């Protein structure tokens, strides 16, 4: 089981900025270790939901950096709303984490 994501969601004006840090090796399949190629292992899809409605989704390749970081902006989110983020990798592993939107700063 992969390590939990770190998700932060802060309201700024009428927009909530959501930042996600995922723990994942994101192997490109091009790196070798001890003379052997390290096989491809990377996150393929990400979805984010605000109170159960999908607001952001991503299909990504192995070109995304190790321990991926993403940020996106959701309009109309208020303090106390729930953000749920799910990722799935090419080996079928998946992880879902959630956070509560925090008030403006």
């Amino acid at each position, binding site marked *: 089981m992969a390590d939990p994501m770190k998700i932060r969601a802060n309201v700024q004006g009428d927009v909530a900025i959501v930042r996600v840090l995922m723990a994942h090796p994101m192997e490109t399949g*091009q790196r070798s270790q001890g003379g052997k190629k390290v096989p491809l292992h990377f996150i*393929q899809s990400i979805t984010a939901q605000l109170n159960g409605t999908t*607001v952001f989704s991503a299909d*990504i*390749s192995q*070109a*995304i950096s190790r321990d991926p970081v993403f*940020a996106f*902006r*959701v309009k109309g989110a208020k303090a106390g709303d729930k953000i749920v983020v799910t990722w799935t990798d090419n080996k079928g592993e998946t992880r879902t984490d959630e956070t509560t939107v925090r008030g403006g700063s």
Partner: protein
Amino acid sequence: MQETRRSVIRAGGALALLALTGTALLKPGRAHAAWNKSAFEAKSAIDAMKALGMSSPEESRDIVIVAPDIAENGAVVPIEVTSNIPGTTSISVFIEKNPFPYTGTFGFAAGSVPFVHLRAKMGETSPVRVVVAAGGKHYTSAKEVKVTIGGCGG
């Protein structure tokens, strides 16, 4: 097999269709189409765009790409894209000189702002090309990022 009669599928490959319907069933409510294997495996940005149905996008000044002019570490290149085109539904990123240029597509739905921040690996100095889908049309812009140390292989 009724499908075999449909020339569209014969041309496009039944596999792609299977993958598409399969994942669509598993993940309802996705903001855009399922993981496009042929686009991700394409070795040039043009082939990847073709596989995504994004041929001949229009140049646009309304796409803002924020990325370093010179990236010291190709393993972590921060890229920020904002689209000011009304009705933007997705932002796709291609790093033209990577072994597999197609880096990802970010879909926006239900009131999310067409903005994304990501960190990508870059093998060498290359233009970062962005294609925005809005209202059934495609728009593009690019920014050159110089890489002093490669982020692929090792």
